[in-house]
């Protein structure tokens, strides 16, 4: 640990309170300009408060927990939520002009954005398994409503599918949570303590391993649905393609991570008991399946947002594989990859949102020659896609490189499908990118007042991370990777 705990108070409740208050205010404010600005302001404030967590004391109360693991997630989440809110402000202005959304929709949208942010943060800092479950459920319901926001046939179908599959996932996760309580209850005693994360970790050695195994399978399937791991990924492409693009960015960059965090928490619990089934192989199997499936599916996409949704499945698969593989290097690679994927994928969706507005379509066939017609957007997208495909010097390359070397060192026979999946996805993205970015431009519509700042900031961070990681960050990630076992 390089950062000393010096802050005298715990900022975690403040991080929860800001978006909650903002949600109420945003629901009351009719003017969309004011509410867009307030949305950005609230997100910025949340992010700044989240930064203060870095120097806050590590506390585990009955309700909230702040430890080195979840600080990484909270800071990343609030940062991407902040930049997405900046992008969202310019995105929705255009949607209003073209009449796809009305001011009333936007009021609802902004309030929901903050509710979503509050729910995700609560899921991350909650020390109680039940509260964590409720928070993830609320986050899911708000995104369901946002995905259906355009009220087109396709959007309603996507929202319905997302809702049904999400609910099944959530139900399985709740069953797993109940089982964890039943495992803990004979050891810890009845009552709320048997659901408190930090208490469970202290007593994990005395738990009944067989029931804990069953619980983990349910939790992995349940929260794994939300992570978008194959074979439970079916909702993800629809939900990404039909909702407003800022929501696609939030889904890919944030909500998938929150669900992954839940899986990691339970993996830690399993790891604390020597007699349990090793959770690694299950996660690796689901991760590899997602990677390979998405690798093949990428070739057949005809919709630009669905293309990048499948890319998210691929990357969540990679991350699950990394954490499943375990060990200091793979865990480090997993954490780094998660961070890089969040930054890069949301940058891609920032670009894609404006691209769709500029070209007036999401069909890949009708989006051509962007670098000629809209150089800033086009080249931004080229850089972002090259980064997500794993080309050096972007940070994604570094994490994938670490992961592959670690896989070769520990499980060489698993490294082969891993590399195959990476190459497959790389090829697909390059083929699609050359069509989108180069060649004769397809007819574009009017000028869109695009905001390039969030995308530029994200890409700059990703490129810098590929070349130089600040030593405190490396030390931090290494420490967390050690915790993850």
């Amino acid at each position, binding site marked *: 640990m390089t950062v000393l705990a010096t802050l005298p108070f715990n900022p975690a409740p403040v991080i929860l309170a800001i978006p909650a208050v903002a949600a109420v205010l945003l629901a009351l404010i009719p003017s969309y300009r004011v509410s867009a600005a307030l949305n950005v302001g609230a997100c910025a404030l949340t992010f700044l408060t989240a930064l203060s967590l870095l120097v806050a004391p590590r506390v585990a109360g009955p309700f909230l927990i702040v430890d080195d693991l979840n600080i990484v997630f909270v800071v990343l989440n609030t940062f991407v939520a902040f930049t997405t809110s900046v992008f969202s402000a310019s995105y929705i202005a255009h949607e209003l002009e073209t009449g796809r959304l009305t001011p009333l929709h936007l009021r609802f949208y902004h309030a929901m954005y903050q509710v979503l942010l509050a729910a995700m943060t609560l899921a991350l800092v909650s020390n*109680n398994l*039940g*509260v964590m*479950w*409720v928070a993830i*459920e*609320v986050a899911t*319901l708000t995104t*369901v*409503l946002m995905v*259906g926001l355009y*009220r087109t*046939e*396709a959007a*309603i*179908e996507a*929202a*319905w599918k997302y*809702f*049904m599959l999400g*609910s*099944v996932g959530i*139900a*399985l996760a*709740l*069953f797993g*949570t*109940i*089982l964890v*309580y*039943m495992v803990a*209850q*004979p050891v810890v005693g*009845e*009552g*709320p303590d*048997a*659901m408190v994360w930090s208490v469970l970790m202290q007593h994990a050695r005395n738990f*009944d391993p*067989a*029931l804990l*195994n*069953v619980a983990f399978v349910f939790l992995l399937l349940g929260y794994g649905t939300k992570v978008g791991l194959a074979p439970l990924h079916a909702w993800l492409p629809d939900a990404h*393609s039909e909702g407003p693009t800022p929501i696609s960015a939030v889904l890919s960059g944030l909500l998938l991570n929150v669900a992954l965090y839940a899986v990691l928490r339970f993996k830690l619990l399993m790891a604390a008991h020597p007699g349990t089934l090793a959770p690694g192989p299950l996660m690796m199997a689901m991760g590899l399946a997602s990677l390979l499936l998405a690798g093949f599916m990428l070739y*057949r*996409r*005809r*919709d630009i947002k*669905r293309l990048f949704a499948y890319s998210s499945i691929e990357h969540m698969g990679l991350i699950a594989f990394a954490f499943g593989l375990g060990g200091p290097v793979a865990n480090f690679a997993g954490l780094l990859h998660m961070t890089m994927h969040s930054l890069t994928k949301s940058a891609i969706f920032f670009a894609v949102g404006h691209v769709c507005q500029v070209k007036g379509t999401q069909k890949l066939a009708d989006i051509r020659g962007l670098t000629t017609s809209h150089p800033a957007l086009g080249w931004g997208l080229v850089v972002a896609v090259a980064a997500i495909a794993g080309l050096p010097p972007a940070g994604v390359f570094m994490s994938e490189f670490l992961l592959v070397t670690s896989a070769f060192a520990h499980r060489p026979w698993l490294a082969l499908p891993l590399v195959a999946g990476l190459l497959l996805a790389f090829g697909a993205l390059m083929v699609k990118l050359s069509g989108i970015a180069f060649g004769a431009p397809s007819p574009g519509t009017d000028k869109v007042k695009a905001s390039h700042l969030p995308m530029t900031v994200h890409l700059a961070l990703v490129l810098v991370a590929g070349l130089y990681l600040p030593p405190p960050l490396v030390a931090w990630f290494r420490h967390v990777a050690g915790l993850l076992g």
Partner: protein
Amino acid sequence: MIEHAITPNLVFDVAHMFAGALVLISFLMLYQDRLYALLNVFALQAVALALAVAWQAYAQDAPHLYVTAGIALVFKALVIPVALHRMVARLGIHRQVETAVSIGPTMLAGIALVALSMVVMLKATPAADALAREDLAFALSVVLLGLLMMVTRRNAVSQVVGFMSLENGLILAATGAKGMPLVVEISVAFSVLIAFIVIGIFLFRIRERFDTVDVDALDRFRGGRA
């Protein structure tokens, strides 16, 4: 475990009876081919759930569970079925339950799922007390049967009923776990409420655009997009 006048054996048997009834009613739901009948059977399952939860409240001496039982009785056995009845009538939804898989194979799959949950749960929980573990096996059966129903039905309404039946299984499991914190029970009941509101919104939104709430009708629109 219990200081009441009733012998532990009777407590055990009654809890078993109610939990078993839930599984049986799940099977009843699997072969209903009319929506109204399906809603009635769902209401019956909610009543059985209310009884099961109330019995647990008595057996565990946990009065807060009576609240959960009351919610099951009022909300799930009365309000939701009546509301869905009216919705089906008002929206002019097909009264027929359309199945993706015919009844026979579905029932067989259901039996297999119950066997699976018995095997998994009884093997995994030798240490837990007998009431809890067998309750859990029944609860898992109800969950899996609800899941099966969601998969094999095509109408949106019957999928929703499948989902609520699945939630019944979850509540059975949560109340069977002795001393599970109140937070969770309220949240479970609350989630049903939220889920219902969302579903209601969705049904109305879908009705705005479609002539039927058959999910297959939604699938038509996937044709053009890969």
